[in-house]
C-alpha cells in the first residue's frame, strides 16, 4: 500500500468537538483532568465556557453529564477508556443507560496501543462493558475521517453513545465527506474466500493483510465494523454466507467485544467457522505501541497467518 497520512483518532475527536461546537450551542464537554490527552482541550480553547473540567473524579463526571443532559444540553464526557468505561461503569449503567439520557462518552486511549503507560491504562474491556448496557451505542472508528463523522452522528443520535478513540496515530483510509451511519458496516474490499471483520486500528491491518493474501490467491473481503452495537447483523450474515469463513480483528479482549458479537449472530442465524483476533485474555505491558501490537498479534502479519491456516 502507498504511504498514507497518519492521525490519532483522539486528535480527530478534539477537532470534531471544536468544529461541531461552533454550530451547536448546546454541545458541552466534560473532562477529568485529561483535556490535553483526550484532546478536548482543542474544544476548550475555542469554547472555554462550555468545557467543564471535573477534576480526577470520573464517576462524578459521568453523573454530572447525566444531569446536564436533563437540562437540554448535549454533553460529551471524556476520559481514558479505562476510567470512563471501567471506573465509571456503574454510573454509566445506572445514571445514563437506565434513564436513557442523551449523554455521549468519548473515551480515548483504548486498547494496548496506549503503549508505555502499561497495563493499568491499556483498556481492552470497554466494548464488553459497554455492550452489556441496554440501548447503549458502542463504536470505534478506523481513522480520522470516520472519527470526526462519528462524533457528528453521535450528536445527532438521541440517547447514550460510547465512542472509543486511540492514542496512536493511524493511517487515514477514508476520503473526506465519508457518509458514516451508526449501525452500518462498510465493505472496504470485496472477496470470496474469507471475510475479515475489523474495527479501530485493525481495519488498516486487515486491508494490508487482504492485499497480501490476494498475492497468494486468497480472496479476502474486508469489512470495517465501526459500530459494535447495534451490530450490522445483515452485513455479517451476507458476508459469512458469501465467504464461508470469518476472521474478526479488534484491539480488545477476545472476550466480549466485536468477535463475540459476530459469533453470537452467526451461531444463532448461520453457523460459520470464526477465528477471533484480539487480546487473548491477558494484560498488556509497557512498550512502544507498534511493538506491542505486533507482540499481541494485532497485525497484518498475524491476520495473514490466521487466514492461511484457516
Amino acid at each position, binding site marked *: 500500500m502507498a504511504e498514507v497520512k497518519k492521525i490519532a483518532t483522539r486528535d480527530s475527536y478534539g477537532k470534531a468537538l471544536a468544529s461541531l461546537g461552533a454550530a451547536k450551542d448546546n454541545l*458541552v464537554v466534560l473532562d477529568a483532568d485529561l483535556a490535553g490527552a483526550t484532546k478536548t482541550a482543542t474544544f476548550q480553547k475555542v469554547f472555554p465556557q462550555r468545557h467543564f473540567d471535573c*477534576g480526577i473524579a470520573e*464517576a462524578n463526571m459521568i453523573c454530572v453529564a447525566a444531569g446536564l443532559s436533563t437540562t437540554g444540553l448535549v454533553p460529551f464526557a471524556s476520559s481514558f477508556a479505562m476510567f470512563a468505561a471501567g471506573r465509571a461503569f456503574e454510573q454509566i449503567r*445506572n*445514571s445514563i443507560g437506565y434513564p436513557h439520557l442523551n449523554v455521549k462518552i468519548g473515551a480515548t486511549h483504548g486498547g494496548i496501543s496506549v503503549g508505555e503507560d502499561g497495563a493499568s491504562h491499556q483498556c481492552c474491556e470497554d466494548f464488553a462493558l459497554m455492550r452489556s448496557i441496554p440501548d447503549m451505542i458502542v463504536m470505534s472508528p478506523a481513522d480520522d475521517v470516520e472519527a470526526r463523522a462519528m462524533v457528528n452522528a453521535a450528536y445527532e443520535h438521541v440517547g447514550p453513545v460510547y465512542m472509543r478513540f486511540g492514542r496512536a496515530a493511524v493511517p487515514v483510509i477514508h476520503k473526506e465527506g465519508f457518509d458514516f451511519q451508526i449501525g452500518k458496516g462498510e465493505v472496504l474490499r470485496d472477496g470470496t474466500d474469507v471475510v475479515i471483520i475489523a474495527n479501530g486500528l485493525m481495519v488498516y491491518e486487515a486491508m494490508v493483510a487482504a492485499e497480501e493474501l490476494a498475492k497468494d490467491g486468497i480472496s479476502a473481503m474486508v469489512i470495517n465494523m465501526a459500530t459494535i452495537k447495534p451490530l450490522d447483523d445483515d452485513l455479517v450474515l451476507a458476508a459469512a454466507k458469501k465467504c464461508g469463513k470469518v476472521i474478526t480483528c479488534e484491539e480488545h479482549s477476545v472476550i466480549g467485544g466485536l468477535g463475540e458479537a459476530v459469533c453470537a449472530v452467526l451461531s444463532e442465524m448461520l453457523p460459520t467457522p470464526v477465528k477471533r483476533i484480539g487480546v487473548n485474555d491477558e494484560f498488556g505491558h509497557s512498550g512502544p505501541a507498534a511493538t506491542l501490537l505486533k507482540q499481541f498479534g494485532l497485525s497484518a502479519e498475524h491476520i495473514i497467518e490466521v487466514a492461511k491456516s484457516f
Partner: protein
Amino acid sequence: MTNTEKNQLQRTACKIRMGIIEATHGAKAGHPGGSLSAADMFTYLYFKEMNVDPSNPKWEDRDRFVLSKGHTAPGLYAALANRGFFPVEDLPTLRHIDSYLQGHPNMNTVPGVDMSTGSLGQGISVAAGMALGLKHQGKTARVYTLLGDGEIQEGQVWEACMLAVHYKLDNFVVIVDNNGLQIDGAVDKVMSPYPIVDKLTAFGFHAEHIDGHNFDQIEAAMEKAKTVKGKPAAIVMKTVKGKNVSFMENNAGWHGKAPNDVEYEQAMNELKTILARLEG
C-alpha cells in the same frame, strides 16, 4: 409562616406518611423508615418550596428534585401523588409487576420524578449537573437533592460536593437526612460520617443543622439558602427514622421492611389520630 400554613403542611405531611404506609404495605416491601423521617422535607419541598406544575411535569423552567437516597421512593411517590402528579390510589401498586411505581424512582415512568436513582451516591452528582446546566443557560430554577446520612459514606458524594463548590452552584441545595440509622445499625457504629456540617463547611458549602421535623426551621434554612451567593447550601436535618409510627421510630429494622396487615392497621390508626388532632 403562619400557624394556619404550618398546620396545613403538618396535615399534608401526615397524609404523605399514610401514603408511605399504604405503598409499602401494598408492596409487601420497600423502605418506610427513611421515607417517614424525610416526610416533612418532602412536604415542604413539594407544597411550599419548589416551583413545579403537576399538569406539566417536564416543564423546562421547573425547580428540580433528585432523591439521591432513592430507596425512599415511597416518600417521594406519596408526596408527588398528594401534589397531584398521579392518583394517590396508585400508591399501593408500588413494586408490583408492571406498575409504573418502580421500587426505586424512575424518571421515565413516574410523573414528577426528575431523575432515576437508587444506586447511592450518584443522585447528588446528577443534581449538581442539573444545577450546573441550568446556571450555564442562565435559568433561575433551583435544584434540590436529598441524601441519607449513610449514603454520604459513598466517596462520590464528596466528589460532587467539590464540584458544586468549584462551580459556585448557588442554585443548589443539598439536604442530608440525619436519622442516624442505616441497614447495619447506627451510622456512627457502621462507619461514622460525622461531623457532617463541619465536613460540608470545609468543602465550601454554607451548611447548617436543623430539626427536620420543624417547619419553621426548614423554612428558615431554605430561605437562608436563597440568599447565599457564590456557593451551594447544605441542610443537615436531624430526624427520627420511622417518624410518627411508634413501633418504627428509631428502629433500624424498619429501614427496609414493610408492615404486615396488623402493623399496617396500627400505623394507619396512629397517623389518623395525628391527622384528627391537626384537623381538630
